[in-house]
C-alpha cells in the first residue's frame, strides 16, 4: 500500500521522530532513554499532562525507537474517547496481542498506546487493569491522560508515571521560528508571541495557528494576520450563545445550545469547557463579573458529572446567565 509519508499538516510533519528531538522535556527523555537501552526493563507507562505538551509524540517516539521502521506492526494505537466501550478495547487488545506475539529483536513485547485514558469510567478502568495483567507477558501499555488523578490507583501503581508540564514559552517560540524558517515563512517576533499567548502551552494549537496564518497571507505572518486567524478560528457559536443568554434571550440561547449538540455533536462537558474559555475573552464584562460567571460555570460543570441529563444542566446554566444578565441590566 502506498502511503504518503510527507505530511501536509505541520503538526505531523514536524512531530519529532526521535526522543532526542523532543523539545523542552529533558528529564523525561533521559529516563525514557534508559528504558530504550534495555527494553526488557520497560514497565507500563503513564504519561500525564495538559494537551499539546508532547505526550503522544513521546509515545510514538518510544514506538519508533523500540521497533524501528516496523513500528506500526507492533504498536496498537487506541483512543479511549473514540472507542465505544471497554469491551471494544478488550477485543482489540486481545486480537492485537494474539497476532503480534512474535517478538521483535530484543523487544519481548508489543506496544499498546491508549490515549485519553482518563476518559474511561471507573468500572472500565478496572476492566482495563485486568486486561493489562492478562496481557502483560506480551504487551506493554502506554497510557496517556490529562489528569493522572482520574486514573484509578491500581493502574497508577502498575505504571511508571511521567508528568508533562506546560511547555516553556521560549521553547515554543523557538519551535515556531524553526518551523517557519523551514517553510520559508517570515514570522516576526510579535506574531510568534501572539501565537504562544493564544495557545496557552498547547504546541499543537500553536503550530496549527501558524500554518493557518501562513496560508492566510502568502508566507508572511505578522501579528495582525495571527489575530485575524485566531478570531476566525475561535468558537463563535459559543460566544453568541453566551451573549444571547446574558441579554436575557434565554430561548434563543437554548436553541443555539441544541444546534451545537445536534449539528456539531458537541457533548455537554465540551460546551461548558468552551463557555469557560470564551467567557474570559469577552471584552464587555468586568473581571469581577467574569469571575462570578466562571464560578457559576464551575458549579454546573460539576453538576454535569453528577447528573443524568446534560441538556438539563446546560439549560440551567444558561438560565443562570440570563438571570445575571438581567440583574446587570445592560446588553453585551
Amino acid at each position, binding site marked *: 500500500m502506498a502511503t*504518503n509519508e510527507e*505530511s*501536509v*499538516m505541520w*503538526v*505531523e510533519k514536524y512531530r519529532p521522530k526521535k526522543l532526542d528531538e523532543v523539545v523542552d522535556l529533558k528529564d523525561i527523555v533521559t529516563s525514557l532513554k534508559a528504558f530504550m537501552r534495555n527494553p526488557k526493563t520497560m514497565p507500563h507507562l503513564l504519561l500525564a499532562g495538559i*494537551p499539546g505538551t508532547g505526550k*503522544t509524540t513521546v509515545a*510514538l517516539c518510544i514506538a519508533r525507537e523500540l521497533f524501528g521502521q516496523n513500528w506500526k506492526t507492533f504498536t496498537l*494505537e487506541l*483512543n479511549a*474517547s*473514540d472507542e465505544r466501550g471497554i469491551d471494544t478495547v478488550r477485543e482489540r487488545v486481545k486480537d492485537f496481542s494474539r497476532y503480534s506475539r512474535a517478538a521483535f529483536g530484543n523487544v519481548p513485547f508489543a506496544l499498546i498506546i491508549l*490515549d*485519553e485514558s482518563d476518559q474511561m469510567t471507573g468500572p472500565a478502568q478496572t476492566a482495563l487493569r485486568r486486561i493489562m495483567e492478562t496481557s502483560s507477558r506480551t504487551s506493554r501499555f502506554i497510557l496517556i491522560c490529562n489528569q493522572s488523578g482520574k486514573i484509578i490507583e491500581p493502574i497508577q501503581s502498575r505504571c511508571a508515571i511521567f508528568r508533562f508540564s506546560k511547555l516553556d514559552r521560549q521553547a515554543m517560540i523557538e519551535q515556531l521560528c524553526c518551523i517557519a524558517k523551514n517553510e520559508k515563512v517570515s514570522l516576526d517576533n510579535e506574531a510568534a508571541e501572539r501565537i504562544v499567548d493564544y495557545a496557552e502551552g498547547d504546541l*499543537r494549537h500553536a503550530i*496549527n495557528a501558524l*500554518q*493557518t496564518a501562513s*496560508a*492566510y497571507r502568502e508566507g508572511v505572518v505578522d501579528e495582525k494576520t495571527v489575530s485575524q*486567524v485566531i478570531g*476566525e*478560528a*475561535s*468558537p*463563535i*457559536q*459559543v460566544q453568541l450563545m453566551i451573549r444571547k443568554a446574558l441579554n*436575557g434571550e*434565554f*430561548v434563543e440561547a437554548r436553541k443555539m445550545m*441544541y*444546534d451545537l*449538540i*445536534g*449539528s*456539531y*455533536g*458537541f*457533548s455537554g462537558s*465540551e460546551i461548558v469547557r468552551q463557555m469557560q474559555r470564551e467567557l474570559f475573552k469577552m471584552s464587555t464584562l468586568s473581571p469581577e463579573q467574569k469571575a462570578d460567571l466562571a464560578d457559576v460555570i464551575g458549579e*454546573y460543570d460539576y*453538576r454535569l458529572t*453528577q*447528573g*443524568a*441529563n446534560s*441538556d*438539563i*444542566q446546560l*439549560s*440551567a446554566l444558561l*438560565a*443562570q446567565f*440570563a*438571570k445575571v*444578565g*438581567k*440583574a446587570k441590566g445592560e446588553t453585551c
Partner: protein
Amino acid sequence: MDVIGNEEAKTAFVDWLNNKRGTKKAVLLYGPPGVGKTTLVNAAAGEFGLKVIEMNASDARSEKAINRVAGPATAFVALDTFSTESKGSILFMDEVDGIAGNEDRGGVSAILKIIENSRIPVIMAANDPDLDKLRPLKKVSALIRFHLVRIPLIISLLQKVCQREHIAAEFEALERIAENSSGDVRSAINDLQSLGETTKTLTLQDTVMLKARNRDISMDETLRGYFSAKSLLEASMLLSRSNVDYDDFLMAVGDNLPLRYPDPADLAKAYDFVSRADMYKGRIGTENWHLLRYFYNSLAEAAATSPESYKPFTLISPPIRVITLFWTKGKRTMLDGICAKIGHLCHVSHASAKMDFIPFIKVMMARNKADGVMSWFGLQPAEVEFLANMTRF
C-alpha cells in the same frame, strides 16, 4: 360508498348482502387492521338501511355471552327474507380472531351455532384468517379479502379531511403521515387528528414525532397539572400519582420551563431545582432508588417556584432534543467521519480533531489554501463540500 380502496372487496360484500350469498350464510372479512372492514360494514348498513347488532373483541366470547347478546336478535327477528327494501338487521362480530384462551372457551362453536340458526346475515371480521381455530368458521363463510390501502388514496383522503377541518397542510406532511401508516387508514387519520389538534398549519417538520405523540396523552396531562400546580403539595401529589417515564418527563419540563416562567429570576430558580432533580436522577443510577423521593421533591419545588405567575400556555410536546437530533443526524455522521480521518493521521481523538483542527481548516478553506491538506486527509468531494458549507462553530 365513502370507503376508499379495496374495490373488489367492496363489490363482493355488496353482492353478498344483496342476496347473492349463495350457500354461505355468513361472511368473513379479513385483512390487516385499519383498512376499512368495520367502516365498510357500517357504511353499507347505512346505505341499505340495516340495523347493525354488533359484538367485538371486548365482549366476553363465551357461549353464554354470545347467546345473551346475539341469541335474541337471531331468534326473534322477523322471518322476512332480508331485503334492501324492508329494514332488517345484520349481526356483526368484529375481531373474531380475538377468540382465544379459557375465557372464550366455546366461543367458536357458539358462533357456529348462531350462524346455523340465524335468519339474518352474519358478518365477521378478522385480521388473521389463518388461525387454526377459525377454520370451522371459514368453512361455513364466504371469504372476502382486504388489502392495505395504497398510499396515494390515503393522501387524497387526508386532503379531504384537512379541507373539512380547516387544516392547511403541506403535501409532504400528508405524504409522510400516509407513508408512516403503511396502508392503515385508521392510524393515518388518528395521526392527522392528533397533529391537527395543536396546529392548524401542518408542516413536514410537525410530523416527525408521530410515533412519540401517540402515547403522550398522560404525559401532557401530567405536564399541565405540574405547571399549573398552586402549591408545593399539589405538585408533589401530582408527581406521586403520575406514572410517566422519568427521563421523558424531565426532558419535557426542560423544554417547557421557559414558557412557564417568563421572568429570568424565576426561570433560573426553577431550572436550578430541575438541575438538582437531575443530579438525584444521576445518583440513583441503577440501584439507589430510595433517592427517587428527593428527585420528585426537587421537581415539585421547581413547579412551585412562583405559583401566582401561572398563565396557561401551549405545551411544546415533541422533545426539542429528539427533533434536533433527528434532523441533524446526517450532519453529525458526516462531521464525525471527517474527524475520524483527521484523528487517524494526526493521532488525536475525533473530539480533538473537531476542536483543534476543523476551525483552522475552515479558515484555510475560506482562503482556498486547504486543497493539499484535504487531499492528504483523504477527504471525499462530498466531505470537502460539507466542510465548505458548514457554518463555523
